[in-house]
């Protein structure tokens, strides 16, 4: 191996070691080294937020499908209340979960 190649490999290896060790060099001592994974409550909030978005998107989609003629007036009148109810329930559930999670 030529001198230049050895020097380049040494630089590459040293840079790799420094970058890999960077999290420990930056924070040699930490109080909490856990991954900030969502707690059970946060997971539940996330699920409820997904359900809320899904319900609102379904409502929006129904409106659009009705305006473009894919859904007839009769079907629209039939589907709208249940979708509105689902969206309202999802919003209420999310609000409840968020207020439960807030510090008193």
């Amino acid at each position: 191996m030529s001198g230049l190649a050895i020097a380049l490999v040494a630089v590459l290896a040293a840079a790799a070691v420094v970058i890999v060790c960077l999290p420990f060099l930056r924070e040699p001592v930490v109080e909490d080294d856990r991954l900030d994974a969502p707690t059970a409550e946060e997971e539940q909030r996330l699920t409820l937020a997904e359900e809320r978005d899904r319900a609102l998107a379904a409502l929006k989609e129904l409106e659009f499908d009705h305006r473009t003629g894919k859904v007839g007036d009769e079907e629209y009148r039939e589907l709208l209340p249940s979708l509105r109810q689902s969206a309202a329930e999802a919003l209420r559930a999310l609000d409840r979960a968020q207020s439960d999670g807030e510090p008193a």
Partner: protein
Amino acid sequence: MADLGRAALVVSFGLALYAFVVGAFAARLNRRRLADSARNALVVCFFSTLVASAVLATALVRHDFSFSYVAAHTNRTLPWIYALTAFWGGQEGSLLLWLLVLTGYGALAVAMNRRLLRDLVAWVVPVLGGIATFFSFMLVAVASPFNVQTAPVDGAGLTPSLQNPYMVAHPPMLYLGYVGLSIPFAFAAGAMLSGRTDERWIVATRRWTLAAWTFLGFGQLLGAHWAYVEVGWGGYYAWDPVENAALMPWLAATAFLHSVMIQERKGMLKVWNMVLVALAFELSVFGTFLTRSGVVNSIHSFAQSSVGGWFLAFVVISSVFSLVLILWRLPLLQAKTKLESALSREATFLYNNLLLVALCLTILWGVLFPIVTELVKGESRTIGRPYYDFFLRAFGLPLLLLMGIGPLIAWRRTSARALLKSLTWPIATALVTGVVLIVAGAGASRPGLIAYTFSAFVIAAIVVELVRGTRATGSLFRLVGRNRRRYGGYIVHFAIVLLAIGIAGSSAYGTNVERQLRPGQSTTVDGYRLAYQGVDPIVNDPNRTGQYAVLRVSGPWSGTLRTGNVTYTGFDETDNDVGIKTDWLRAQDLYVIADFQKGSNVVFFNVLVKPLVNLIWVAGIVFLLGALVAMWPDAREQRRLVLRLAPARA
């Protein structure tokens, strides 16, 4: 410099192994700094692989024949651009490209999601690290591109069929597609390993999947055009196992892109989506195995060696890993809602998925059949074109029809009356098209007629959908801007229709005749008059020898057409350099292959007239446009997703 390349690969292997082992350890034990360290290892792995790639590229361009790989795949007369394409012209270089793209994609994907999805990324890193470990191990221990030798005076040269401008873009494009499918796979596996099977992994990988799918689709079209202009048999797709190897993951990814929308909207098909994403990834590795192992005969298997066994083992291990993960997480993947009606948008997506997967598995069986018969009966039996053509029609035509019906059906449910009302214009357009075609004499080919009428149906359905949507929103731009993914998808549907018309036109309504001509003689084929004027030999070209027949053409296209045989320096075989002239008004090609007879001035000409074939290449451009529209970032959606995910991170 070979030492530098080899050392850089050893560093890459070490970093990938670290990301794999330490990353898994950190995620399992919930250690933040260790997980960050593993993530950094994956990012640095890309840079060390980049150094190794730069060393190989430099050696190729400089014709450094002390590298065995360079001597085996280039020679001094090779233009520098083809010397560079030799990077992916051989086995070892292709593996290096795999690793480079994988680590590049991986580094970018984990860096982009490191803050919002830290817990998920912690599990994604070891999955990507595991894949990178396999490829870097292969490069270090099994198929190194940095083996050295005493430099010979000249190299063996690059396979002649690879000396084509398309080879500059086609293989890297396919690799960007193949390898890109590792990202959704890694996030899906990460979601299952972490037990967080909500929508976050889908949101994080949506554009990655679209990008990989686009590269794979466009790469295949580039390959088809390469086969058309370079291989010189008059076709563009031969159902070759290696061609099929790229088509299968694309079909699985297409199914996934559709079914994932059902999960986003209805929370259904979670298991199915995991299966599809794993299938697409496994098929992409299987494709590399097919290309590199030599277990099947293919014109694309440019390099064959013992790496096949390693790849097969990797495919088996990763398939078992995926299966076990899905079975383990089945309780988390249960749907909360059910399909409400067989007449709904989600139902059409489901039918589309079944057809796409059926087509994919049918092709897989065709590819595996020679291997299975070899193992069972001791003699390899291949499946021919009629098998593939039959199933392409059986599954492809209903798929085409669904592309027209799907956009006009509402989510949840649609009444038969509303559907029929929506379909009035498309059905009328299809019927009129069919009648006009029969009257015009195009009824001779039933598949062609069906493909054309179905295509008219789909185009009319897209137009109806756009017109109604524009009326509802007041502006076409507003309509597309509000849902880029959907309308980008419709542009892609239009590209598929162009593809179907091009395939049907060129195969069902084409002409293929053979003529023997001496200088001064002429013939007429489908309105083209071809007058053979004489031979024009190649002179003063150090890279090629050969001769061209010069034809004077008049008719739909007028001018001089040259078609000949070429032998590249260092190779014995002679290749066709076909003459192609395009009549853009009809999207039609005049395609002439010349076969010179030794000791005679008679030339055998194979003259093909291929109507509408150019729509296939136009479809490629439209496909790219549609994919770009679908991928274009949507600031409103981004804000909504950040707001949704933010509480979980607060």
